């Protein structure tokens, strides 16, 4: 650090004269971090598009925010001189960041879990509609498997060559023949 300004920079005030070396090192770090975040972003996009691989997955946002936060630290600490100010200015800055985090966290606690407790009203209408359409298509696809076997209304002539094709004649036989299984499965029409 160069302490050349007025020879009284021990008061922690705004008269810190930043060294040329500090400025150059800070901007170099910032440029390297920018290159890093761009490189990682392009790498992720390349793998997602060409190999269908999510190399960072859910961590891409935290990684980007971490790099951006580091860059913000260097700007605030050196370019803005917070490292030398300390005190009230740092308190104000830190306070704004803390309240921003509270703002974000509590809003997310509301909005992030709306569908968790069966509040379907929070689900956008077209997503509901898409789900219903999907369900309808699925049941249509499965419908043939569940189709009822058609009822036989005429006896098979190969098995019962003597049987009449007229279903009414069967009824007549049931009524005439007392040995018909009327005790197990009584014809409801006959009783009522």
């Amino acid at each position, binding site marked *: 650090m160069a302490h050349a300004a007025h020879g009284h920079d021990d008061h922690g005030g*705004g008269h810190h004269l930043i060294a040329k070396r500090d400025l150059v090192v800070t*901007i170099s770090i910032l440029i390297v971090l920018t290159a890093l975040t761009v490189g990682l972003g392009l790498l992720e996009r390349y793998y997602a598009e060409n190999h269908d691989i999510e190399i960072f997955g859910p961590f891409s946002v935290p990684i980007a925010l971490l790099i951006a936060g580091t860059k913000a630290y260097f700007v605030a600490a050196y370019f803005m001189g917070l490292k030398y100010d300390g005190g009230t200015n740092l308190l104000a800055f830190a306070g704004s960041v803390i309240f921003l985090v509270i703002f*974000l966290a509590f809003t997310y606690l509301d909005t992030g879990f709306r569908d968790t407790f069966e509040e379907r009203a929070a689900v*956008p209408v077209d997503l509901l509609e898409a789900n219903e359409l999907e369900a309808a298509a699925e049941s249509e696809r499965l419908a043939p498997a569940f189709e009822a076997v058609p009822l036989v209304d005429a006896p098979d002539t190969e098995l019962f060559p003597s049987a009449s094709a007229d279903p009414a004649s069967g009824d007549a036989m049931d009524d005439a023949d007392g040995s018909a299984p009327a005790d197990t499965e009584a014809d409801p029409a006959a009783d009522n």
Partner: protein
Amino acid sequence: MATPSPIPVDSPHADAGHEGDGHHGDVMLRGYDGELHPANLQHHFVSSEQQFESAKLGMWLFLVTEILLFGGMFVAYAIYRAWYPDLFDQASVELDTVWGAFNTLVLLASSLSVAWAIRAAQMDNRKLLVGLLWLTVALAGGFMVVKYFEYTHKFDKGIFPGQYFELAEGVPTVAELQAGTATLEPATEADADHSGGGEAAAGAHGEAGAHADDGHGKKGEIFYNPRAGIFFSIYYVMTGIHGLHVVIGMIAIGVLAVKAQRGRYSSVYYTPVENVGLYWHVVDIIWIFLFPLMYLI
């Protein structure tokens, strides 16, 4: 009452009763109390040092409100990103990473030049101070020029905020879906295979596999997402208000440069340079967060 009369002094420290009194200004005034005071010192401050620190704290409090202003928009971004992650993936592809990265470097360079300008003011190097301030204005102008081309390029592609976003033909809007006048057709297997997924709601009107280019220049999955307008509302508002801050910063730094040319600032009084510099760094920090969130992920 006698008007205070300027009394030039040879050394700014000549009248200092104690060490560390800070900056006095090049001109001393005789106050109503009959004592000599630095010309830049307002009567309600004990010393120039206190005046400088107070002004700086005031600037910091203003910057807190700026951080919270953008904070609200970042919260909106975070919530919509949590709701519609695919939308943000599709949309970030539409933003030109190279120009975004270039603009990031331009703003970082302008931050450096402002920080260096303050150093120049502290060292009484007026020529360097003026030069660096104008350089900062030029870099900020470069940023805005790139922004202009980015915006007009998007307008050409029909990328507008909210309901004005021009979706590909046949894709229903969210308003139509909610009114029930249009329905989404579920994506067929062929569609999903062809586009590599992530396009669940895009298979509208049987244009199977035609999404790559349907003849309307609508390349990209974002044009098949009815919610595209949400992302671009956030994008235009955030980058727009940031751009407004850049323009205001350009004006402020331009005024500083003109005043610096007239010799208004020196190592004993450079409070406006310091405070506008702080403002400019916050504009830079906001872009540091905007760039990766919008362009990269």
